[in-house]
């Protein structure tokens, strides 16, 4: 037996090195891997909170219609009823949060209308389009159409 462990020096060193290596690995792993890694899957569970705590820019039409119920009523039966306010007015969460502090500009109608209604071969056939130059002859679209209720039957005027 003694014969067998006569030259044990190198074995002890190996075991020592291995032990230190293991210790370093365990400590590093503990330090580097976040505590919540693996709680839900192979990722940091708190990454879900990181993703859900981004600031809102679009308030959503429900918020606008709470305060602007007059505009909501004006639009309720119009051809534009399905369009959200912020599709035309732009992101206005800052205004909805604090209407006194942020007063939104009124958007210019014509470029908005043209972006959606200009004739284009690729647009589906059901969608009403116009060739702006021929249709309005340079006049602004809101000279004749009301942005919130663009059709004529629903306001009862002849344009």
């Amino acid at each position, binding site marked *: 037996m003694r014969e067998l462990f006569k030259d044990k020096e190198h074995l002890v060193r190996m075991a020592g090195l291995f032990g230190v290596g293991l210790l370093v690995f365990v400590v590093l792993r503990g330090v580097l891997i976040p505590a919540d*890694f693996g709680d*839900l*899957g*192979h*990722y*940091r569970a708190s*990454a*879900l*909170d*990181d*993703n*859900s*705590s*981004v*600031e*809102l*820019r*679009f*308030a*959503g*039409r*429900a*918020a606008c*219609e*709470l*305060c602007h*119920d007059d505009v909501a009523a004006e639009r309720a039966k119009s051809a*534009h009823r*399905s*369009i*959200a306010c*912020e*599709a035309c007015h*732009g*992101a206005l*969460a800052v205004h*909805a*949060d*604090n209407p006194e502090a942020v007063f939104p500009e009124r958007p210019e109608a014509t470029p908005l209308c043209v*972006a*959606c209604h*200009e*004739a*284009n*071969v*690729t*647009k*589906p056939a*059901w*969608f009403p389009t116009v060739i702006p130059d021929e249709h309005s002859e340079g006049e602004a679209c809101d000279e004749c159409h009301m942005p919130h209720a663009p059709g004529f039957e629903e306001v009862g005027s002849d344009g």
Partner: protein
Amino acid sequence: MTVNRRQFVLASGKYLVMSAAASRAVGYVLAGSPERAPGYSAHDHWWAMAIDIDLCIGCGGCVRACKEENDVPLEPFFFRTWVERYHVPEGDIEHPMVDSPNGGYDGFPERYREGDGSKNFFVPKLCNHCAHSPCVQVCPVGATFESPDGVVLVDKDYCLGCRYCVQACPYGCRFIDPRTHSVDKCSLCYHRITKGLTTACCEVCPTGARTLGDLKDPSDPIHEFLRTNMVQVLKPQMATGAKVYYADLDGSVR
């Protein structure tokens, strides 16, 4: 307790007009601050999107809204969602002409002629939020993952920027943000859907061509959409478990 006029109108309006979810959403909006969603349980939802090709008018509103809501760089190489224009010469579905000037951000200047026998339509694209994502499988550090509610998300603090996932995505939906050198992609507006709001792109879509849906909610209109339309996902042969469902998708779309 004293209640002023504005508070009274707000509170009563909320309960009269809106469902519970919508009034909760408005609560968040009016509170202003970016907050996590305490009442939200990820396990009760399974998010998907429904896209109706015949309703898309190519206005680009979704592209602009997405960039604004999610602070995506404005250069024309970075998109979380974009719109493609397809021009399919009659019968030749193997050789469609596809373009997407600035992702559709500025709309689509006319390029084709009426009556040349071609078929023309727009295809809005975004991350397909695959249930078995190739991009998640290749991430070496667990910085991208499928959330319990079926959204493929990025952990930007943890991302190394190694670009494996950019190459792995069969739909080309990922990019490296030049400011942070971390990968970025559609998060299905996770900060909105967890608060009862819809995504920015669906919010501004004027025709309802794209709508967010919760497959775990039996009353969600997406079930009706899936039942009553002929639907397809992109690249079904890749078996990615894509959850963006297209109605009336042409065979030429890839």
